[in-house]
């Protein structure tokens, strides 16, 4: 499948907030109540269409456990978008947001679009963090905010796609230098229709060739 752009996303946040489930819901449209612990990072990808352009989202689902923290920091590099996830039923995951945000800002490029996500919105009865608190935090730190549920799929599509839209707008505005891969954006091998999906030896020469126009 060919694409016009490839955006690199990372999903970050405390362990057990539902990062992997969000990814699974977005890529496979299914929900797994019990998920194995993520070791280091897992990858996911999906095509979306914005402005009638094919955009491939390459999503890096990072491990939330503290032991992996310094490893996951190396994944921030070259990400165009980040989903910062907390669990609305666990207050401490919300309290750790500033640490995550500092980490993300420190190890990524400054133009990275960060979306704040309060996950598990289906568990209204066990809610510990009010929606307003999430909104306030996002406003204070200049983030986009959304409450999602990986279980019911509520807002999951929107979260990923809105982030992509914002990145796309930034490209149009010229904020992102699309020829610099450190920004997490790659121009696709539009002229090679036989391109298989990942992983595998895709025409890397094609992707570079696409960059010159």
């Amino acid at each position, binding site marked *: 499948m060919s694409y016009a752009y490839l955006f690199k996303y990372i999903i970050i946040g405390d362990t057990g907030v539902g990062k992997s489930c969000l990814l699974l819901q977005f890529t496979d449209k299914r929900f797994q109540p019990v998920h194995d612990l993520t070791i280091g990072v897992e990858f996911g990808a999906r095509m979306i269409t914005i402005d009638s352009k094919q955009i491939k989202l390459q999503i890096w689902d990072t491990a939330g456990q*503290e032991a992996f923290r310094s*490893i996951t920091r190396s994944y921030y590099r070259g990400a165009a978008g980040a989903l910062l996830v907390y669990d609305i039923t666990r207050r401490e995951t919300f309290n750790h947001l500033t640490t995550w945000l500092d980490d993300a800002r420190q190890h990524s490029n400054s133009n990275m679009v960060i979306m704040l996500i309060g996950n598990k919105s289906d568990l209204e009865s066990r809610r510990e963090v009010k929606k307003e608190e999430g909104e306030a935090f996002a406003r204070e730190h200049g983030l986009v905010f959304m409450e999602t549920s990986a279980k019911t799929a509520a807002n999951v599509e929107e979260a990923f796609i809105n982030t992509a839209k914002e990145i796309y707008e930034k490209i149009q505005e010229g904020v992102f230098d699309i020829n610099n891969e450190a920004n997490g954006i790659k121009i696709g091998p539009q002229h090679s229709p036989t391109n298989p999906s990942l992983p595998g030896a895709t025409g890397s020469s094609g992707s570079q060739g696409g960059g010159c126009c």
Partner: protein
Amino acid sequence: MQHQYWVTKKSVQRKLGGKEDECVISSDAELDAKLELFKSINDSCLQLQRFIDLYQERLCFLAQEEHSLGRYLKECGKNEKNDSAGKIMITVGKSLAYVGHQRLTIRPPLVRLHQEVDTFRGRAVTDTKVTVSEMEKCRTEYRAALSWMKSASQQLDPDTGYGVDKFRKAQSYVRSTKYKFDKFTLACLQKVDLLAAARCNMFSHALVPYINALSVFSTKTTEVLSTASTNLDKVEPYDFHVTAELAIPNEDKDKETFFNADYTDEDKEKILKESESEWKGW
């Protein structure tokens, strides 16, 4: 082969006390706190054993000394010509010998406690030590795996597949070592908790006979000493006439006047003037 390289590297680093990733260290905080508790249980048990050993030894010495002093006083009392002095010496001697004898009854429960602590150290502490060292071995392997994964993460591109195979290899190694490490971590946490509880349990059992022995000893010796004290009251007071002359009564008086008198310079001057006038008078 590759993982052996990382394990060796990590072992050397841990042995030499090289700088470890702070996030990795803080993720082991609970375990490390528990290990501190284990260390303190181990150390304090060893200390306690030493103290009990010294204590029971000195207890024996003290009992022996009391006994011999008591016998000596009794002997002297028998040979004393003065009736009252003899009575006093015999009474004191008898009660001292008794106290010395009774003091020995504290020793058996102490020795028992010593044995209990010894068994506790030999069995429970040693067993926990084995688990802890197994855990440390797993920890080294796990941390080695993490370092490996970190290095494999440096250049990773899932779109082109670059470095993914290398990363997957490291990742599966992290998964297996993490599983083992988590298992041993849990075992350590549980064992140390159990160890702490077992120690409390041991003390609450082994200390009861000691406390009882102490209280029996105190009751018995109090009884004997108070009887002795009433007996001593009955004895005619010893006449200190002869010895009184050996004392220096003046010394005390001097002290009293010295400390009671308000010392002022004026007084001193007055005295000086008086003495001067006296001199003139001469």
